[in-house]
Every structure is written in structure tokens, then in C-alpha cells.
């Protein structure tokens, strides 16, 4: 329990610094942000009005406190483009990204588990070498290139999947799935490669342990040992590192959503970057970082529940 409390407490200053970074983003814009947002032809009156609207005429600490006060009340501000609430924009887009992330993780698990187990069982054999080679290539090939190749093969050449056009799952589940398959596989291949390498490594570590030797000596089959004994123990490091992969996955989805024209969180970020809608950019960046901090927190807490050694280590440190 003490570990969990301490872990939650360390997340607070991190979230606070995240808020400072996000707040300062708008001040990275060279020159007057209001001028940049409105463009070269803006009148001085319009610039002054926007400067006042954004609160940029006040001292920096005051601006920060006011902004943080709003954020803490759950208000991420209004879009500079059409005055719509940033919260609303994000909530509209988030389900698409969550669905895509879940599909991607499913694809990754479906590829990584069989390959990782087979590679560990047949360590050093051609199957292992092939699996490792595929994983090495899978990590190197950028998901957005795979996405473009998929578009080329499956939508331009054979018309199996639509090139764009997202349908919400509650409107038409089949069409929704069709629009998710290619992006999920394109992003999932890389995640699968990382997971597979990790699972293989963790399994090999466990397979060298005494209790496995005992299970084998008692006549258990190779797969039986893996499924009943090794996998359970190898899963702990895999789940932790898998949880940490979420941050990378969120970043990767930005490009995937853009390529497949999916109206998700990532494409909202890209669109707001190009329309100079900086409040939306700030809002999305903040939500992404907070999501990562919370996922890491949950993973760490779960890890400490599953593996009591973590708590002991934490206490002695």
C-alpha cells in the first residue's frame, strides 16, 4: 500500500510539470502568437483583441494560474478556429483512437504470442531465426509506409477495403471493422515485433530456471511447461513493457489516422497544427501526456500487486 501511495504521489509533480510544458508551448511561437495565428494581413485591432482573448497581455505567471485553474475545472478552452469547446472536440475524436488502439493491440498480441512462444521453444532453430529476423525487420519498417503499401495493395489494386471514410461502430459494425483492419494491422506489426522479442527473451529467462527443469524432469511436455509454468512468469515483464509501449503507440496512431483519414485524436492534432488552432493543440498534447502518465501509473500499481518483490524493493530503496 505504501508503494502505491508513493507512486501516486510522484505522479503529481510530473503532471504539474506536464501542465507547465503544455502552457509554455504557445510561447514557443516566434514573435507574437496572435499575429502568427491571424496571419500577415491581420489588423492591429484584431491582433489586440486575440491577444486579450488568449490572455497574452498579462504577466506569464498570471496567465499560467488562470489557464491551470480552467484546466483543473476540466475546461481545455475554446478552439481558435470556430469557438467550439476543445473538450467536446477531443471527446468526439477519442472513441475512434481508443478503438484503433484496442484493435492494434489485439493484432499485436495475435501475432506476438504464437511467434514468441514458438521462437522460445525452438530456440536457435530455423523457426526461431525466422521469427527473430521478421521481428527485426518489423521494427525497422515504419508503420506509415506499411499503411501506404496497404492502401496501394488492398484499396487501389484489389479494392478489398475502403481507402477512407470512417463509419462509427454503432451505425454499421461491419463497415466500421473494415475501416479499422488496415490501420490496425499497419500499426500492429511493429508493436507485435517489439512484444514478440520481449516475450521470447522473458520466456528464455524463465526456461533456464530450476522449477522449469523440475517440471520437465517430471515428464511434462515442452508446450505444457510453457503454457502452465513459463508463460505465467514471463508475462510480468511483458505486461509492464507493453504498458510502456502505449506512449509510442499513441504517437504512431497520429500518422496512421492521417494516412487512413480516420477522424481520431491524432488527426485532430494534425489538423489543429495546420489550422494554427493552438488551444486545441495544447488540449490534445495535455490529454495525450496525462493519458500516458495515468497508464504508466496503473501499470506500475498492477505490477506491484502481481509481483510483491517490487514493493519490497521500493521499501528498501
Amino acid at each position, binding site marked *: 500500500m505504501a508503494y502505491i501511495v508513493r507512486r501516486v504521489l*510522484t505522479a503529481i*509533480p*510530473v*503532471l504539474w*510539470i*506536464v501542465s*507547465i*510544458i503544455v502552457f509554455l*508551448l*504557445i510561447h*514557443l*511561437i*516566434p514573435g507574437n502568437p496572435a499575429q502568427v495565428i491571424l496571419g500577415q494581413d491581420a489588423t492591429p485591432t484584431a491582433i489586440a483583441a486575440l491577444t486579450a482573448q488568449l490572455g497574452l497581455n498579462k504577466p506569464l505567471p498570471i496567465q499560467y494560474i488562470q489557464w491551470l485553474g480552467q484546466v483543473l475545472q476540466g475546461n481545455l478552452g475554446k478552439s481558435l478556429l470556430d469557438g467550439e469547446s476543445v473538450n467536446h472536440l477531443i471527446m468526439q475524436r477519442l472513441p475512434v483512437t481508443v478503438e484503433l488502439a484496442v484493435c492494434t493491440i489485439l493484432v499485436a498480441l495475435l501475432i506476438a504470442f504464437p511467434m514468441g512462444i514458438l521462437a522460445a521453444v525452438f530456440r536457435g532453430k530455423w523457426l526461431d531465426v525466422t521469427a527473430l529476423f521478421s521481428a*527485426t*525487420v518489423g*521494427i*525497422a*519498417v*515504419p508503420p*506509415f*509506409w506499411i499503411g*501506404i*503499401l496497404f*492502401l*496501394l495493395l488492398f484499396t*487501389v489494386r484489389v479494392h478489398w477495403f475502403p481507402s477512407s471514410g470512417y463509419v462509427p461502430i454503432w451505425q454499421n459494425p461491419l463497415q466500421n471493422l473494415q475501416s479499422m483492419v488496415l490501420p490496425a494491422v499497419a500499426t500492429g506489426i511493429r508493436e507485435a515485433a517489439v512484444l514478440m522479442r520481449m516475450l*521470447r*527473451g522473458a520466456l*528464455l529467462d524463465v526456461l533456464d530456471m530450476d522449477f522449469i527443469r523440475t517440471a520437465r524432469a517430471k515428464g511434462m511436455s515442452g508446450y505444457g511447461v510453457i503454457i502452465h509454468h513459463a508463460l505465467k512468469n514471463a508475462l510480468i515483464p511483458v505486461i509492464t513493457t507493453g504498458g510502456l509501449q502505449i*506512449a*509510442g*503507440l*499513441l*504517437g*504512431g496512431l*497520429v*500518422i496512421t489516422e*492521417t*494516412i487512413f483519414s480516420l477522424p481520431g485524436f491524432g488527426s485532430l*492534432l*494534425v489538423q489543429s*497544427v*495546420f489550422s494554427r488552432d*493552438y488551444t486545441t*493543440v495544447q488540449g*490534445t*498534447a495535455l490529454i*495525450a*501526456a*496525462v493519458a*500516458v*502518465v495515468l497508464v*504508466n501509473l496503473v501499470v506500475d500499481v498492477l505490477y506491484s500487486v502481481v509481483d510483491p518483490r517490487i514493493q519490497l524493493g521500493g521499501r528498501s530503496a
Partner: protein
Amino acid sequence: MAQVEITHSELHSETRLLRKNRWRHLRKNVSLWTGAILVAMVIIIAIFAPWLTPFSPIQLNYSAILQAPNATHWFGTDELGRDVLTRVFFGARTSMEVSIGSVVISLVIGIPVGLLSGFYRGIVDEWLVMRVVDAIQAFPFLILSLVLAAMLGPGIRNATFAIAVGYIPVFVRTVRGQVLLEMEKEYIQSARALGARDWRIMLRHVFPNITTPLIIQATLAVASGIVAEASLSYLGLGAQPPTPSWGSMLHTAQGYLTEAPWLAIVPGIAIAVAVLGFNLLGDGLQIWLDPRKRRS
């Protein structure tokens, strides 16, 4: 107690055996060699691009628009009649400039911060440096680079800086972690007892002993820098036209998938080969320099 004496020739043969062993491992290290060859290839192409092709990467040629691969243009031409292979060669320059540049910037900042933070520890280390590191790492790498590049404005220089910011915490963490390990060792205490100054201990004793993980980390960072640069350029925030970049070439290719599918092939292969090279080199160095990794 019987005294063990090691003769000069025994010591000599022991050293020779160690060296032989090291060389044997080095020869067997397929990752290292394949990685080194691929990386050398990409760097040579980046440096000697103008001498490797008769075409210009930016000169428009309206009489050769969207030509399929042929004897003159081996991988075809793009929508402005430029040779695809030539642009891929010059794209290697952009890619290496940004990825290596961003790693160098983050090393220049990350090493001193990590060294000082790990050496002196205390409140500043625990509650400022490490929490800032955590906060920066909370942002998904690509989202951070994207947002920074967007705020600073598009272009190679800003993209390099935007990517570098994402790496700084990685290097601070690596250096700090290694410094903490080294500080526990006896030679540091001996140096202290002999009255060595802090900066001397840091630079002459600690730093030389932490370079191995840094080199490995830096090599792997270049690999993800290549993907980050390509991603930013794909989105239009990296290299600006007409500067060739693998990412922006893929962006253009997506608009011509029906008429000119060849545009999507070579830039992607280039990214994959470059990333594979640096990843393999990093893995190979790790296997070579860290004997614990040899087992698997």
C-alpha cells in the same frame, strides 16, 4: 598461506586468450557487421549523393513527368519529372542530418545534466531534474516532436531541435543511472580519498566508464530519429519543398497511388534499410560490449 605468483608470460597468454575470445565474438556478431555495412552504405550515399547520380534532385523536368521505371530513370520519376532514385539519395542527407543532428544536440545537453544530477543527487536531482525528465517522457515522442515543430515552424533546423527535445530525457536517464552505479564503486572512493576534485572525478573517472551504454543508446536513437524525421516530413513539418526527404516523398506518393505506384516503394525501402542498419548496429554493439547479452 601459499602465495600465488603470476609470471609475466602467464599474464601475457591470459591477455592473448581474452583478446582472441573478443575477436571470436566480434567475428560471429552478425548484427554488428550487417548493421555496420548498412549504416556505412547510407552514410556514403548521403555524403557522395551528387557524384552517384547524373540528375538533379530539385530541377523540374516537365518532359519526364511520372515516368515508370525505365533504363534512364531506374525507379521512375515523380510528379515534377525528377528522378526518384536521385531524390532518395539526397533524402539520405536530410535524414542523416536531422537524425544524427538531433542525437548530438540531446547528447550535448543530456550528458552534463545526467552527470551532474547523478553525481550530486539531492533535492534538485530527485524533485527537479528527474521529474522534468518524467514529464517530457510523458508526451508520446512523436506528439512532442510534432507539437514542438508546429510551434517553432516547419523546416529542417526546427525539426532537428524538436526531435532532440524528446531524446534529452533518454540520455539524462542513461547517464544518471550509470553514474549512480559507478559512484558505488571503490575506485571513486579511492579517488576521493586521494583528494581529487569533483569535476576531475566526473570527467576523468566516471565519464570514461559510462560511454558504452551511451554509444549503444545513441545508435538506437539515430534509428528512431530517422523515423521521426520521415514522419514530420510526411506531415509537412520537416524538410520543405524542394528539399528531398523520404517522408515528404511518401506523402507525395500517397496522392499518386493509382497513376504512379513506384513512387511509394523506394523511399520506404530507404527508411527501412537505414533504420534496420542503425538498430542492428546498436544491437550488435550491445552484444559485443555487454557480455551478458551474448547468451540470447
